[in-house]
Protein backbone atom coordinates (compact mmCIF):
# COMPACT_ATOMS: atom_id res chain seq x y z
CA UNK A 1 0.00 0.00 0.00
CA UNK A 2 0.93 3.64 -0.09
CA UNK A 3 1.25 5.95 2.91
CA UNK A 4 -1.66 8.19 3.87
CA UNK A 5 -1.34 11.97 3.48
CA UNK A 6 0.92 13.88 5.84
CA UNK A 7 2.73 17.19 6.14
CA UNK A 8 6.50 17.15 5.90
CA UNK A 9 9.10 19.49 7.33
CA UNK A 10 12.86 19.23 7.31
CA UNK A 11 14.26 21.51 10.05
CA UNK A 12 17.76 22.87 9.48
CA UNK A 13 18.87 22.64 13.10
CA UNK A 14 18.12 20.75 16.29
CA UNK A 15 16.41 23.69 17.98
CA UNK A 16 13.92 24.04 15.12
CA UNK A 17 13.26 20.27 15.25
CA UNK A 18 12.52 20.46 19.00
CA UNK A 19 10.14 23.41 18.43
CA UNK A 20 8.20 21.37 15.86
CA UNK A 21 8.16 18.37 18.19
CA UNK A 22 6.74 20.47 21.02
CA UNK A 23 3.57 21.15 19.00
CA UNK A 24 0.97 19.17 20.92
CA UNK A 25 -1.96 20.04 18.67
CA UNK A 26 -0.75 17.76 15.86
CA UNK A 27 0.27 14.11 15.70
CA UNK A 28 3.97 14.70 15.02
CA UNK A 29 6.30 11.87 14.16
CA UNK A 30 10.08 12.04 13.76
CA UNK A 31 11.45 10.57 10.54
CA UNK A 32 14.94 9.18 11.12
CA UNK A 33 16.24 6.53 8.67
CA UNK A 34 12.65 5.54 7.89
CA UNK A 35 13.48 1.84 7.53
CA UNK A 36 10.77 0.87 10.03
CA UNK A 37 8.55 3.95 9.97
CA UNK A 38 8.06 3.95 6.19
CA UNK A 39 6.82 0.33 6.13
CA UNK A 40 4.49 1.12 9.03
CA UNK A 41 3.16 4.13 7.12
CA UNK A 42 2.79 2.09 3.93
CA UNK A 43 0.78 -0.49 5.90
CA UNK A 44 -1.11 2.44 7.45
CA UNK A 45 -0.22 1.18 10.90
CA UNK A 46 1.17 4.70 11.36
CA UNK A 47 -0.62 7.77 9.98
CA UNK A 48 1.16 10.81 11.40
CA UNK A 49 -0.11 14.30 10.53
CA UNK A 50 3.35 15.79 10.41
CA UNK A 51 6.69 14.17 9.66
CA UNK A 52 9.72 15.98 11.05
CA UNK A 53 12.68 14.75 9.01
CA UNK A 54 15.96 14.73 10.96
CA UNK A 55 18.02 13.66 7.94
CA UNK A 56 20.50 16.41 7.23
CA UNK A 57 20.96 17.42 10.88
CA UNK A 58 24.72 17.03 11.02
CA UNK A 59 24.74 17.82 14.73
CA UNK A 60 23.14 14.38 15.29
CA UNK A 61 25.63 12.53 13.08
CA UNK A 62 28.87 11.71 14.87
CA UNK A 63 30.93 8.96 16.42
CA UNK A 64 33.41 10.33 18.95
CA UNK A 65 35.30 9.22 22.03
CA UNK A 66 36.03 10.43 25.52
CA UNK A 67 38.51 8.71 27.85
CA UNK A 68 35.91 6.20 28.95
CA UNK A 69 33.03 6.29 26.43
CA UNK A 70 32.07 6.17 22.78
CA UNK A 71 29.34 8.68 21.94
CA UNK A 72 27.16 8.12 18.90
CA UNK A 73 24.80 10.74 17.47
CA UNK A 74 21.26 9.43 17.06
CA UNK A 75 21.20 10.02 13.27
CA UNK A 76 24.34 7.97 12.71
CA UNK A 77 23.57 5.28 10.15
CA UNK A 78 24.38 1.60 10.63
CA UNK A 79 26.71 1.68 7.61
CA UNK A 80 28.77 4.38 9.35
CA UNK A 81 29.00 2.29 12.52
CA UNK A 82 30.08 -0.73 10.46
CA UNK A 83 33.07 1.08 8.99
CA UNK A 84 34.06 3.06 12.11
CA UNK A 85 37.47 2.15 13.55
CA UNK A 86 36.36 3.60 16.91
CA UNK A 87 33.47 1.13 17.06
CA UNK A 88 35.64 -1.79 15.94
CA UNK A 89 38.24 -0.98 18.56
CA UNK A 90 36.10 0.01 21.53
CA UNK A 91 32.65 -1.56 21.06
CA UNK A 92 33.37 -5.04 19.63
CA UNK A 93 29.88 -6.34 20.49
CA UNK A 94 28.34 -3.76 18.18
CA UNK A 95 30.81 -4.69 15.43
CA UNK A 96 29.95 -8.39 15.50
CA UNK A 97 26.21 -7.70 15.67
CA UNK A 98 25.88 -5.06 12.94
CA UNK A 99 26.02 -7.45 9.94
CA UNK A 100 22.93 -9.18 11.38
CA UNK A 101 20.88 -5.97 11.40
CA UNK A 102 18.75 -6.17 8.25
CA UNK A 103 20.43 -5.93 4.86
CA UNK A 104 23.09 -3.66 3.39
CA UNK A 105 20.59 -1.38 1.61
CA UNK A 106 18.68 -0.97 4.90
CA UNK A 107 21.86 -0.34 6.90
CA UNK A 108 22.76 2.41 4.43
CA UNK A 109 19.72 4.39 5.66
CA UNK A 110 18.75 3.02 9.08
CA UNK A 111 19.95 4.91 12.16
CA UNK A 112 20.90 3.85 15.68
CA UNK A 113 18.52 6.44 17.15
CA UNK A 114 15.59 5.34 15.01
CA UNK A 115 15.81 1.72 16.09
CA UNK A 116 16.30 2.75 19.73
CA UNK A 117 13.25 5.04 19.70
CA UNK A 118 11.04 2.42 18.02
CA UNK A 119 11.86 -0.34 20.57
CA UNK A 120 10.79 -3.22 18.36
CA UNK A 121 11.02 -6.34 20.55
CA UNK A 122 12.65 -8.28 17.69
CA UNK A 123 15.25 -5.61 16.89
CA UNK A 124 18.89 -6.05 17.90
CA UNK A 125 19.64 -2.51 19.06
CA UNK A 126 17.68 -2.40 22.35
CA UNK A 127 19.28 -5.68 23.50
CA UNK A 128 22.74 -4.53 22.42
CA UNK A 129 22.42 -1.24 24.29
CA UNK A 130 21.30 -2.98 27.48
CA UNK A 131 24.15 -5.51 27.18
CA UNK A 132 26.61 -2.67 26.59
CA UNK A 133 25.33 -0.76 29.63
CA UNK A 134 24.69 2.23 27.35
CA UNK A 135 23.10 5.52 28.31
CA UNK A 136 20.49 7.16 26.10
CA UNK A 137 20.76 10.94 26.01
CA UNK A 138 17.48 12.62 25.12
CA UNK A 139 16.61 16.26 24.57
CA UNK A 140 13.48 18.40 24.54
CA UNK A 141 13.01 22.17 24.58
CA UNK A 142 13.22 21.92 28.37
CA UNK A 143 16.72 20.44 28.26
CA UNK A 144 18.73 17.25 28.22
CA UNK A 145 18.47 14.10 30.32
CA UNK A 146 20.13 10.71 30.41
CA UNK A 147 18.50 7.31 30.90
CA UNK A 148 20.22 3.96 31.35
CA UNK A 149 19.34 1.57 28.53
CA UNK A 150 18.05 -0.95 31.11
CA UNK A 151 15.41 1.63 32.13
CA UNK A 152 14.67 2.99 28.65
CA UNK A 153 12.85 0.09 26.97
CA UNK A 154 9.53 -0.30 28.76
CA UNK A 155 7.53 -2.65 26.56
CA UNK A 156 6.22 -3.33 23.08
CA UNK A 157 7.28 -0.25 21.05
CA UNK A 158 7.30 1.63 24.36
CA UNK A 159 10.21 3.68 25.69
CA UNK A 160 10.96 6.25 28.36
CA UNK A 161 10.85 9.02 25.73
CA UNK A 162 8.47 11.80 26.76
CA UNK A 163 6.39 13.73 24.26
CA UNK A 164 8.38 16.58 22.75
CA UNK A 165 11.60 14.66 23.33
CA UNK A 166 14.01 13.04 20.88
CA UNK A 167 17.14 10.93 21.20
CA UNK A 168 20.22 13.09 20.82
CA UNK A 169 22.98 10.56 21.33
CA UNK A 170 23.92 7.23 22.82
CA UNK A 171 26.87 6.82 25.13
CA UNK A 172 28.58 3.43 25.44
CA UNK A 173 31.36 2.56 27.90
CA UNK A 174 34.51 1.48 26.08
CA UNK A 175 35.31 -2.20 26.24
CA UNK A 176 37.99 -2.91 28.86
CA UNK A 177 40.85 -5.40 29.00
CA UNK A 178 39.54 -8.85 29.79
CA UNK A 179 36.02 -8.17 28.63
CA UNK A 180 34.54 -10.53 26.06
CA UNK A 181 31.33 -10.64 24.10
CA UNK A 182 29.16 -12.89 21.97
CA UNK A 183 26.11 -12.43 19.78
CA UNK A 184 23.84 -14.86 17.98
CA UNK A 185 20.44 -14.72 16.37
CA UNK A 186 18.29 -17.13 14.40
CA UNK A 187 16.26 -15.69 11.53
CA UNK A 188 14.41 -17.26 8.61
CA UNK A 189 16.69 -15.39 6.21
CA UNK A 190 19.95 -13.61 7.06
CA UNK A 191 19.06 -10.05 7.98
CA UNK A 192 15.38 -10.68 8.69
CA UNK A 193 13.94 -10.02 12.13
CA UNK A 194 15.16 -12.71 14.50
CA UNK A 195 13.03 -15.58 15.81
CA UNK A 196 15.28 -15.44 18.88
CA UNK A 197 18.57 -13.72 19.63
CA UNK A 198 20.93 -12.87 22.45
CA UNK A 199 23.83 -10.56 23.25
CA UNK A 200 26.28 -11.55 26.01
CA UNK A 201 29.20 -9.78 27.64
CA UNK A 202 31.39 -10.67 30.63
CA UNK A 203 34.75 -10.13 32.24
CA UNK A 204 36.74 -13.24 31.40
CA UNK A 205 38.65 -13.13 34.60
CA UNK A 206 39.01 -16.07 37.00
CA UNK A 207 36.26 -16.39 38.01
CA UNK A 208 34.00 -14.93 35.33
CA UNK A 209 32.18 -11.84 36.52
CA UNK A 210 29.99 -8.97 35.42
CA UNK A 211 28.10 -11.19 32.95
CA UNK A 212 25.28 -9.52 31.04
CA UNK A 213 22.86 -11.67 29.05
CA UNK A 214 20.16 -9.90 27.06
CA UNK A 215 17.65 -11.71 24.87
CA UNK A 216 15.57 -10.20 22.07
CA UNK A 217 12.73 -11.42 19.85
CA UNK A 218 11.46 -13.67 22.64
CA UNK A 219 9.19 -11.32 24.58
CA UNK A 220 7.48 -7.92 24.36
CA UNK A 221 10.86 -6.20 24.78
CA UNK A 222 14.56 -6.96 25.09
CA UNK A 223 15.01 -8.90 28.33
CA UNK A 224 18.06 -8.90 30.58
CA UNK A 225 18.27 -12.36 32.16
CA UNK A 226 19.89 -11.73 35.54
CA UNK A 227 19.02 -15.21 36.78
CA UNK A 228 21.04 -16.63 33.89
CA UNK A 229 23.90 -14.20 34.57
CA UNK A 230 24.03 -15.36 38.22
CA UNK A 231 24.95 -18.86 37.05
CA UNK A 232 27.79 -17.54 34.90
CA UNK A 233 29.28 -15.16 37.48
CA UNK A 234 31.70 -16.90 39.82
CA UNK A 235 32.52 -19.81 37.51
CA UNK A 236 36.28 -20.40 37.17
CA UNK A 237 35.73 -22.02 33.85
CA UNK A 238 32.68 -22.67 31.77
CA UNK A 239 31.79 -26.28 32.53
CA UNK A 240 28.95 -28.18 30.89
CA UNK A 241 27.26 -28.30 34.28
CA UNK A 242 27.53 -24.54 34.80
CA UNK A 243 26.15 -23.89 31.35
CA UNK A 244 23.27 -26.33 31.92
CA UNK A 245 22.31 -24.56 35.17
CA UNK A 246 22.27 -21.23 33.30
CA UNK A 247 20.18 -22.73 30.50
CA UNK A 248 17.58 -24.00 32.95
CA UNK A 249 16.91 -20.42 34.03
CA UNK A 250 16.07 -19.49 30.43
CA UNK A 251 12.89 -21.60 30.73
CA UNK A 252 11.52 -19.20 33.35
CA UNK A 253 11.84 -16.03 31.25
CA UNK A 254 8.70 -14.17 30.15
CA UNK A 255 8.30 -15.55 26.61
CA UNK A 256 5.81 -14.08 24.13
CA UNK A 257 5.00 -15.72 20.80
CA UNK A 258 4.86 -13.78 17.55
CA UNK A 259 4.14 -14.39 13.85
CA UNK A 260 7.49 -16.14 13.49
CA UNK A 261 7.29 -18.65 16.32
CA UNK A 262 5.16 -19.72 19.26
CA UNK A 263 6.35 -19.68 22.86
CA UNK A 264 7.60 -23.27 22.96
CA UNK A 265 9.70 -22.71 19.83
CA UNK A 266 11.14 -19.47 21.17
CA UNK A 267 12.00 -21.15 24.46
CA UNK A 268 13.94 -23.79 22.56
CA UNK A 269 15.61 -21.29 20.22
CA UNK A 270 16.61 -19.03 23.13
CA UNK A 271 18.69 -21.88 24.54
CA UNK A 272 20.27 -22.52 21.16
CA UNK A 273 21.29 -18.89 20.61
CA UNK A 274 22.52 -18.63 24.21
CA UNK A 275 24.83 -21.64 23.79
CA UNK A 276 26.23 -20.30 20.51
CA UNK A 277 26.74 -16.77 21.82
CA UNK A 278 28.52 -18.10 24.92
CA UNK A 279 30.76 -20.25 22.70
CA UNK A 280 31.65 -17.16 20.70
CA UNK A 281 32.34 -15.21 23.87
CA UNK A 282 34.65 -17.90 25.31
CA UNK A 283 36.51 -18.52 22.04
Amino acid sequence: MKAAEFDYLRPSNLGAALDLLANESADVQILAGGQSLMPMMNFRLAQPELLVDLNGLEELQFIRQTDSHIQIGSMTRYCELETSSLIQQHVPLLSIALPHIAHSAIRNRGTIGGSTALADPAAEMPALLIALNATIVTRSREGQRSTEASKFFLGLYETALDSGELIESISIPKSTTGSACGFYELARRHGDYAMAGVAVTAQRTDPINDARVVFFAISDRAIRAETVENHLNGLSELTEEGLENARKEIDKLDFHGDLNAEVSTKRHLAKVVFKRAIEEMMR
Partner: protein
Amino acid sequence: MTKSQNISVIINGEPISASVPLRTNLVDFLRNQVGLTGSHVGCEHGVCGACTLEVDGSMIRGCLMLAVQADGAEITTIEGFADREKAAQLQLSFQKYNALQCGYCTPGMLASALEYIEAGGKADRAAIRQHLSGNYCRCTGYQSIVDAVVAVIEQGGKQ
Protein backbone atom coordinates in the same frame (compact mmCIF):
# COMPACT_ATOMS: atom_id res chain seq x y z
CA MET B 1 -5.89 18.09 -2.00
CA THR B 2 -2.59 16.29 -2.32
CA LYS B 3 0.24 18.13 -0.62
CA SER B 4 3.26 18.55 -2.87
CA GLN B 5 6.74 20.03 -2.85
CA ASN B 6 9.23 20.95 -5.56
CA ILE B 7 12.43 18.97 -5.76
CA SER B 8 15.53 19.15 -7.95
CA VAL B 9 17.50 15.96 -8.45
CA ILE B 10 20.07 14.54 -10.82
CA ILE B 11 18.86 11.25 -12.24
CA ASN B 12 21.37 9.17 -14.21
CA GLY B 13 23.38 12.34 -14.84
CA GLU B 14 20.43 14.44 -15.96
CA PRO B 15 19.11 17.32 -13.80
CA ILE B 16 15.36 17.12 -13.25
CA SER B 17 12.99 19.41 -11.33
CA ALA B 18 9.51 18.28 -10.45
CA SER B 19 6.64 18.80 -8.05
CA VAL B 20 6.18 15.61 -6.01
CA PRO B 21 3.33 14.65 -3.68
CA LEU B 22 4.78 14.45 -0.15
CA ARG B 23 3.56 10.90 0.35
CA THR B 24 5.14 9.58 -2.84
CA ASN B 25 8.14 7.33 -2.31
CA LEU B 26 11.23 7.62 -4.46
CA VAL B 27 10.68 4.55 -6.62
CA ASP B 28 7.09 5.53 -7.45
CA PHE B 29 8.32 9.00 -8.41
CA LEU B 30 10.97 7.53 -10.70
CA ARG B 31 8.54 5.10 -12.34
CA ASN B 32 5.39 7.18 -12.58
CA GLN B 33 6.62 10.76 -12.95
CA VAL B 34 10.02 10.35 -14.59
CA GLY B 35 9.12 7.26 -16.62
CA LEU B 36 12.12 5.19 -15.50
CA THR B 37 10.40 1.84 -15.03
CA GLY B 38 13.59 -0.20 -14.63
CA SER B 39 13.37 -0.06 -10.82
CA HIS B 40 10.64 -2.46 -9.75
CA VAL B 41 8.13 -2.24 -6.93
CA GLY B 42 7.58 -5.46 -5.04
CA CYS B 43 6.62 -5.49 -1.40
CA GLU B 44 6.65 -1.76 -0.55
CA HIS B 45 8.01 -2.47 2.90
CA GLY B 46 11.70 -3.02 2.38
CA VAL B 47 11.75 -6.81 2.37
CA CYS B 48 12.04 -7.86 -1.29
CA GLY B 49 14.81 -5.58 -2.62
CA ALA B 50 13.29 -5.17 -6.12
CA CYS B 51 13.42 -1.35 -5.80
CA THR B 52 17.10 -1.15 -4.76
CA LEU B 53 18.76 1.89 -6.37
CA GLU B 54 21.58 4.33 -5.65
CA VAL B 55 21.25 7.70 -3.91
CA ASP B 56 24.40 9.78 -3.39
CA GLY B 57 26.60 6.72 -3.77
CA SER B 58 24.67 4.37 -1.44
CA MET B 59 22.37 1.56 -2.47
CA ILE B 60 19.02 2.05 -0.75
CA ARG B 61 15.44 0.84 -0.85
CA GLY B 62 13.47 3.09 -3.23
CA CYS B 63 10.26 2.24 -1.37
CA LEU B 64 11.59 3.36 2.04
CA MET B 65 12.66 6.85 1.08
CA LEU B 66 10.31 9.67 0.18
CA ALA B 67 10.85 11.41 -3.14
CA VAL B 68 10.86 14.72 -1.26
CA GLN B 69 13.81 13.49 0.80
CA ALA B 70 15.86 13.07 -2.37
CA ASP B 71 15.84 16.83 -3.04
CA GLY B 72 19.37 17.79 -4.09
CA ALA B 73 20.51 14.18 -4.40
CA GLU B 74 22.17 12.31 -7.22
CA ILE B 75 20.21 9.20 -8.13
CA THR B 76 21.32 6.29 -10.27
CA THR B 77 18.86 3.65 -11.40
CA ILE B 78 19.36 0.47 -13.41
CA GLU B 79 19.03 2.59 -16.55
CA GLY B 80 22.11 4.55 -15.45
CA PHE B 81 24.18 1.62 -14.16
CA ALA B 82 24.77 0.40 -17.72
CA ASP B 83 27.49 3.05 -18.06
CA ARG B 84 29.51 1.54 -15.24
CA GLU B 85 32.05 -1.11 -16.19
CA LYS B 86 31.17 -3.67 -13.51
CA ALA B 87 27.44 -3.23 -14.08
CA ALA B 88 27.78 -3.96 -17.78
CA GLN B 89 29.85 -7.05 -16.92
CA LEU B 90 27.23 -8.17 -14.40
CA GLN B 91 24.44 -7.82 -16.95
CA LEU B 92 26.33 -10.00 -19.45
CA SER B 93 27.19 -12.49 -16.75
CA PHE B 94 23.56 -12.72 -15.55
CA GLN B 95 22.58 -13.49 -19.13
CA LYS B 96 25.31 -16.07 -19.59
CA TYR B 97 24.66 -17.94 -16.33
CA ASN B 98 20.85 -17.80 -16.60
CA ALA B 99 20.77 -15.74 -13.43
CA LEU B 100 17.28 -14.53 -14.18
CA GLN B 101 14.03 -16.05 -15.29
CA CYS B 102 11.09 -13.68 -14.95
CA GLY B 103 13.48 -10.74 -14.39
CA TYR B 104 11.42 -8.98 -11.75
CA CYS B 105 14.14 -9.05 -9.10
CA THR B 106 16.99 -8.45 -11.55
CA PRO B 107 17.36 -4.62 -11.36
CA GLY B 108 17.58 -4.78 -7.57
CA MET B 109 19.75 -7.88 -7.65
CA LEU B 110 22.17 -6.14 -10.04
CA ALA B 111 22.24 -3.07 -7.80
CA SER B 112 23.12 -5.11 -4.71
CA ALA B 113 25.66 -7.21 -6.60
CA LEU B 114 27.22 -4.03 -8.01
CA GLU B 115 27.54 -2.59 -4.50
CA TYR B 116 29.31 -5.78 -3.38
CA ILE B 117 31.74 -5.83 -6.32
CA GLU B 118 32.52 -2.11 -6.31
CA ALA B 119 33.29 -2.31 -2.59
CA GLY B 120 35.97 -4.89 -3.42
CA GLY B 121 33.97 -7.97 -2.39
CA LYS B 122 35.73 -11.33 -2.81
CA ALA B 123 34.56 -14.33 -4.85
CA ASP B 124 33.32 -15.96 -1.64
CA ARG B 125 29.94 -17.62 -2.21
CA ALA B 126 28.84 -17.36 1.42
CA ALA B 127 29.72 -13.66 1.59
CA ILE B 128 27.93 -13.00 -1.72
CA ARG B 129 24.83 -14.82 -0.48
CA GLN B 130 24.91 -12.80 2.72
CA HIS B 131 25.21 -9.55 0.79
CA LEU B 132 22.37 -10.50 -1.56
CA SER B 133 20.18 -11.74 1.32
CA GLY B 134 18.08 -8.58 1.09
CA ASN B 135 16.98 -9.38 -2.46
CA TYR B 136 14.33 -12.01 -3.08
CA CYS B 137 14.35 -14.08 -6.27
CA ARG B 138 11.47 -16.51 -6.58
CA CYS B 139 12.66 -18.16 -9.83
CA THR B 140 16.32 -19.11 -9.79
CA GLY B 141 17.07 -20.46 -6.34
CA TYR B 142 20.01 -18.00 -6.21
CA GLN B 143 22.63 -20.57 -7.29
CA SER B 144 22.98 -19.12 -10.78
CA ILE B 145 22.93 -15.55 -9.47
CA VAL B 146 25.87 -16.32 -7.19
CA ASP B 147 27.60 -18.05 -10.16
CA ALA B 148 27.19 -14.88 -12.23
CA VAL B 149 28.57 -12.62 -9.50
CA VAL B 150 31.54 -14.94 -8.85
CA ALA B 151 32.33 -14.97 -12.57
CA VAL B 152 32.50 -11.18 -12.73
CA ILE B 153 34.81 -11.02 -9.71
CA GLU B 154 37.09 -13.78 -10.99
CA GLN B 155 37.23 -12.96 -14.67
CA GLY B 156 35.27 -9.83 -15.39
CA GLY B 157 32.34 -11.85 -16.71
CA LYS B 158 34.38 -13.38 -19.54
CA GLN B 159 34.74 -17.07 -20.28
